[in-house]
C-alpha cells in the first residue's frame, strides 16, 4: 500500500520570483525511508513542510493513506494529519521533562497506556533513565533522540525528519545516524528524511530523491542515483564528479586521455561529457604524460590527487596511502572504469 502520494505539487512564496516547489510528484511505500536531498534552497524542506501541513500548497495533491490531506479544495491542518516530525533544532519543549515531551502527542489515552508507550519508546532510544530530566540538561545527541522518540510515540503514519543531525558535531553524527536508522527500521516506520548531505542521504535512504531549484531531478535507489545519474546536476551533486570532454567515435568515446570503449547511442562526432569519479581514474609517472599533478590531499587511508590535463580540465584520482607523488609531477592518466560510466551529451 502506498502510504504517501504527492502529485504535481507547486508552492511559491509571496514576493518570490521562482517556485520553491515546482511540479514535484512522487510516491512513498510502507516502511520505506525516502531521503530528500539537494543543495540549500532546492525546496526539499518546503516540500516536507507542505506534506506536514505547515505550509499550504498553491496547487497539487497530497494523499496520505488514501486520504486527501491537501488539494485544491481540501486542506487538513497539521494536527489532524497524524504525522510525526523531527525538527532541525529538535524543538523540545523546554518547560516539560523528557517524559512529558514524549507523552505530549499521546493525548486521549489513559495513564497506564501512556506510561507504557513512553517507556517503550524511551527504552528504544536508550534514554529511559532520563525521563525526569529537562531538555537543557541533555546533550545535543540526546536531545535529538528524545525528539525522535516524541515523534514516534504516537505511532504516526508517516515520520518527517528535517535535517535532524545537522546541529550535531561531525563525529557524533555518524553514531547517531546509525542508531536512528536502526530504530526506524525496527519500528517499520515510513519516513521522509531531508538532508543536504549526500553521504547521509546515501546512508539513510532506501530511496533517494534529488531536488534542485524546486524540481525533482531524479528519484531512485542510492545505487541508481549514484551510478546512473539522469542529469549532470545529480551526478555532480551526489559526489565528487569530474566531467571529461569527449567526442563520440565508432569505437566509443574519444577523450584527451584515451579511447573509452563504451558504446553510446548518439551520432558520431557528438560532443559529450563523461562523469568520472576519483576511483575511475588512475595514473603513473610519465615525463611526457598528458597531465600534471596540481594538488595532493591526504585522506588517511588514501591519497586524492588533483590532475590537470593539458587542455586544462581537472580530474581526480585515488591512490593508496603508500604512494606519494609530489605536486608538479607529470603523469599519464587514464580511465579504468569497470562499470559503465554516465555520459551526458553537450
Amino acid at each position, binding site marked *: 500500500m502506498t502510504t504517501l502520494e504527492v502529485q504535481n505539487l507547486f508552492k511559491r512564496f509571496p514576493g518570490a520570483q521562482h517556485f520553491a516547489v515546482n511540479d514535484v510528484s512522487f510516491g512513498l511505500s510502507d516502511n520505506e525511508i525516502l531521503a530528500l536531498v539537494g543543495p540549500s534552497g532546492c525546496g526539499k524542506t518546503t516540500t516536507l513542510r507542505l506534506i506536514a501541513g505547515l505550509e499550504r500548497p498553491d496547487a497539487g495533491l497530497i494523499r496520505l493513506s488514501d486520504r486527501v490531506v491537501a488539494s485544491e479544495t481540501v486542506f487538513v491542518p497539521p494536527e489532524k494529519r497524524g504525522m510525526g516530525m523531527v525538527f532541525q533544532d529538535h524543538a523540545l519543549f*523546554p*518547560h516539560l521533562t523528557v517524559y512529558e515531551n514524549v507523552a505530549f502527542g499521546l493525548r486521549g489515552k489513559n495513564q497506564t497506556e501512556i506510561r507504557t508507550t513512553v517507556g517503550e519508546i524511551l527504552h528504544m532510544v536508550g534514554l529511559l533513565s532520563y525521563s525526569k530530566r*529537562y531538555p*537543557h540538561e541533555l546533550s545535543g545527541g540526546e536531545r535529538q533522540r528524545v525528539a525522535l522518540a516524541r515523534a514516534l510515540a504516537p505511532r504516526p503514519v508517516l515520520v518527517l525528519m528535517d535535517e535532524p543531525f545537522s546541529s550535531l558535531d561531525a563525529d557524533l553524527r555518524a553514531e547517531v545516524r546509525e542508531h536512528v536508522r536502526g530504530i526506524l527500521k525496527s519500528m517499520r516506520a515510513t519516513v521522509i528524511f531531508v538532508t543536504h548531505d549526500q553521504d547521509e542521504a546515501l546512508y539513510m535512504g532506501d530511496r533517494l530523491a534529488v531536488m534542485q531549484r524546486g524540481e525533482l531531478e531524479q528519484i531512485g535507489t542510492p545505487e541508481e542515483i549514484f551510478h546512473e545519474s539522469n542529469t549532470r546536476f545529480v551526478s555532480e551533486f551526489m559526489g565528487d564528479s569530474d566531467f571529461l570532454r569527449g567526442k563520440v567515435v565508432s569505437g566509443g568515446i574519444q577523450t584527451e586521455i584515451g579511447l573509452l570503449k563504451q558504446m553510446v547511442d548518439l551520432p558520431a562526432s557528438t560532443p559529450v561529457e563523461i562523469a568520472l569519479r576519483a576511483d575511475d581514474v588512475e595514473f603513473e609517472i610519465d615525463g611526457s604524460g598528458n597531465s600534471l599533478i596540481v594538488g595532493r590531499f591526504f585522506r588517511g587511508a588514501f591519497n586524492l590527487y588533483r590532475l590537470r590535463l593539458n587542455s586544462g580540465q581537472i580530474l581526480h584520482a585515488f591512490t593508496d596511502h603508500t604512494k606519494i607523488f609530489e605536486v608538479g609531477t607529470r603523469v599519464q592518466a587514464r580511465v579504468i572504469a569497470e562499470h559503465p560510466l554516465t555520459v551526458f551529451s553537450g
Partner: protein
Amino acid sequence: MYTLGKARFFSFVLLLAMAVTACGGALATETAATSTVVTEAPVEVMDVSGDLVMYSGRSEALIQPVIDAFRAKYPEVNILLKAGSNSELANALIEEQANPQADVFITTEVFTIQSLSQQGIFESYMPKGADQLPAEFLGADNAWTGLTRRVRVIMYNRDLVSDDELPTSIFDLTDPKWRGQIAAAGSTNGGMQAQVAAMRQLLGDEATEDWLNGLIANEVTFFGGHTDVRKAVGAGEFKLGLVNHYYYHLQLAEGSDVGIIYPDQGEGQIGLLSNATSAAIVKGSQNLAAAQALLDFLVSVEGQKLFAELNYEYPLLPGVALKDGVQPLENFRLADVDVVQAALDFDATFDLLEKVGLP
C-alpha cells in the same frame, strides 16, 4: 537556563495578587466609621446617610475640617471629595449634565457658581437660616447660597519691608521697585480669576490688561495656589503677596512675621475687592437629603463658626463672631461689583488671561 520554577512561582503570586486587587477594587470604597460623638448643636440631627459627592473649589486642606465636623454630626454620611479649581470642576459639571455625578458644589468665588446656575446646573434649595443672609449672596431662585466672605489684600514680610515703603494700591504692584519680589496665584486659581473679572467690570478690559501685563513685566511669580504664596512670603522668599485676607492670618498663626495691607482705600480708588465662597446642590443629585443637610450645616451657626474660627473668614450669617485679629469689613470701603453681570461675562475673563499669557 530556564528558571521556570521561579517564573512559575512569581507569575502565580502576581496573578493571584491581581485577581485579588481587581475584585477588591469593587470594594475599595471605605464605609464610614461610626463614631459616638454626641453633638450639642441645637440643629436637629436628621436621618441622612449614604455617599455624598462633593466638588470643592476650596483646597483640600481648607475644606477638610468642615468635612470632619459634618461627619462627626452625621456619621452615616460618607463624603467623597473631589478638590480642584473652580473652573475645572465647573467644566466637569457641565460635561456631566446629562449624567450628574456630584451632589454638592462648593466654590471660592461667586462668578463661577452664578454662571453655572444660569445654565441650569443646580437644584433650588434654600438652606435653613439662609433667609438671614444678605440678598446679594443668594442666587436667583435659591440656586446657590453664599457662605463666607473674603477680601483681596496684600500681605508682606515685615523683616524685608519697612512700614514706610508699603504699597497702598494693587496698581503699586507694577512698580519696578518691587521687581521679582512679588508672589501671586496664577490663572488657574479661582481667587485670581475673580479678581480679574471684578477689575474688568470696574475698570474696563484695557486697564485690566495693562495691569496684568505690568505684573508679568514686573516678574511676579505665579503659583498654583495661595498656600504656596503665603508660605513663600512667610519664609522671606518674596516681599509681597497678593492673597485672600485669611491667608495672612493663617501665616501669622504659624509664627511668621507678616503684615497685611488693605489696598485701594483712597478717594477715587476702586476699594477692596471682595468675593464670597458659595455652595449649591447639583441637579440630579443622588443623595438630596444629605446634600440639603450639608448646606444647612454650612449656613448654620455651627458651620459658620467653623469658617470663622478655623479659617479667619467673614461669615455671611449675621451674629457670628469674627476671630481675634480679623478686621471687621465695616472699617473698609468695598468695591461695588455686579455679580450677575460679571458672571455673564466670565468667559471674556479667561480670554484675557490667555491673551496676556498669565502662567
